[in-house]
């Protein structure tokens, strides 16, 4: 090692072992090496500090979701405070760059204790937004799953899930609808209205333009809102519809299932998310059915960040975190036990 650099040291697994005290012979080796090369002490210490800092940063990221929950619990203590707009904070904290994996029963319990009751929530208009850095995903009060693309926002009406299931979209979102079949689910955006019937679809709405990709079920696309609606099209699964301007009639096409699948798994983020929700999100994103046996999925939470990862690698991390094994019972069915 003629020219010793911090980089050079970090490259050596045995040096990392020395720093983390993971392997006795390596610790011994590097201690001895340093005694023989006192001239490199400064660089050596620098690299050692670098490894330590990375470890501390990992610990910080691992602890952060819990710390945020603890702070929220503190902030919510005085009951007189104005109601929190964020319905349940574990949806809302997505902007934070928390990654890693974590299962925290106690965090969920805290969350449950301090989450506002659903009834007063519905009296407000709710706003969900994904910033420029990360996507955001969450469940609406009727358990409909929404994956919001970066720089997109969604507003839900005051009477959502009581009198209607009407949402307003600006940007791109994927919706997988659940809950009451009696209340139609509709998305307004860019001057168009998309009404869904038991469905999963992706929609982009920017002023004057709309793009809809239907994965399952059936949707109706209309131009205009309120009383002046004009029916444009009914879509069947794997059909898409695009209209660029208010006066254009739009184009209907057939798309490959792969196109939508690839978009969905570009980025999936869980932050202190209840396991039940994690399972539903993964089912939505990977088009599989996941069964969990031998644990209460309402009691555990999970945090993790995935980018273009295969279902297998997501399941590896998830199952490691919850100390379970998974198996594919067939192509589209996964059993976690």
């Amino acid at each position, binding site marked *: 090692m003629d020219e010793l650099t911090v980089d050079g040291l970090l490259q050596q697994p045995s040096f990392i072992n020395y720093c983390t005290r*993971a392997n006795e012979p390596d610790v011994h080796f590097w201690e001895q090496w340093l005694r023989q090369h006192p001239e490199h002490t400064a660089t050596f210490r620098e690299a050692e500090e670098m490894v330590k800092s990375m470890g501390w940063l990992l610990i910080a990221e691992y602890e952060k979701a819990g710390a*945020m929950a603890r702070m929220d619990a503190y*902030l919510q203590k005085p009951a007189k405070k104005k109601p929190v707009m964020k319905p349940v904070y574990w949806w809302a904290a997505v902007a934070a760059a928390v990654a890693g994996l974590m299962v925290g029963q106690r965090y969920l319990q805290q969350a449950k204790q301090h989450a506002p009751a659903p009834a007063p929530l519905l009296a407000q208009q709710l706003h969900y937004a994904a910033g420029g850095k990360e996507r955001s995903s969450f469940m609406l009060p009727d358990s409909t799953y929404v994956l919001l693309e970066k720089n997109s926002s969604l507003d839900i009406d005051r009477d959502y899930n009581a009198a209607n299931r009407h949402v307003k979209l600006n940007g791109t979102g994927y919706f997988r609808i659940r809950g009451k079949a009696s209340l139609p689910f509709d998305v307004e955006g860019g001057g168009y209205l998309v009404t869904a019937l038991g469905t999963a679809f992706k929609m982009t709405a920017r002023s004057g333009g709309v793009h809809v990709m239907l994965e399952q079920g059936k949707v109706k696309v209309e131009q205009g809102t309120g009383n002046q609606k004009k029916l444009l099209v009914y879509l069947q699964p794997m059909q898409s519809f695009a209209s660029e301007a208010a006066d254009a009639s739009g184009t209907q096409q057939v798309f490959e299932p792969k196109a939508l699948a690839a978009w969905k798994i570009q980025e999936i983020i869980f932050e202190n998310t209840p396991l039940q929700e994690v399972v539903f999100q993964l089912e939505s994103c990977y088009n599989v059915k996941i069964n969990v046996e031998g644990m209460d999925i309402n009691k555990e939470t999970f945090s993790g960040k995935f980018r273009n990862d295969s279902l297998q690698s997501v399941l590896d991390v998830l199952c490691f975190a919850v100390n379970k094994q998974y198996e594919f019972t067939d192509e589209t069915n996964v059993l976690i036990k």
Partner: protein
Amino acid sequence: MMQEDASIWRSFCEGDEGSFRDLYSKYYSYLFVWGCKWLDGESAFVKDCLHDFFIYLWEKKGNLSREVHVPRYLLTSFKRRVIEQWGKERRLTNIADLIDVSEEADREVEMFDARYALIQSALQSLTPSQREVIELRFIHHMSLQEIATLKNASLRTVYNLTHRAIAQLRATVGKKNIFFLW
């Protein structure tokens, strides 16, 4: 960025809970690493201290100066707090020497800022599986053999994964071409 900080800080001082939360979220890991540096990895203590420090800020928000350089202010005051609390806990008498407010301390703060960005970007470029292995080693202090058993993978896979992860960290850090000075 600086302007954004300044406006978040001002609205926090005026009592906006959302801004306070944003501030905590934004600076959590940054201050955590900084605290660990001063207490050489007493992470459980740093964690509690950081929570108390932000509660202190929230309670004193009305009295805080509106015009501060946010990261510098947070680093300096958190350093003071973490060392003082540690001194109390351990009944240390010579802690005053550690709380240094000289120009040297200012330089330290600046260096930390540069270094932190570097560590962060290096960590972020890891894939989830590479990251997982590093986490097992750093957070759970597992040996490669233990990780292999746990993940039901061969030792070679884990070796490769660890090596790739570290090589990638190194490559990212190398590209920035910055020296670490502490």
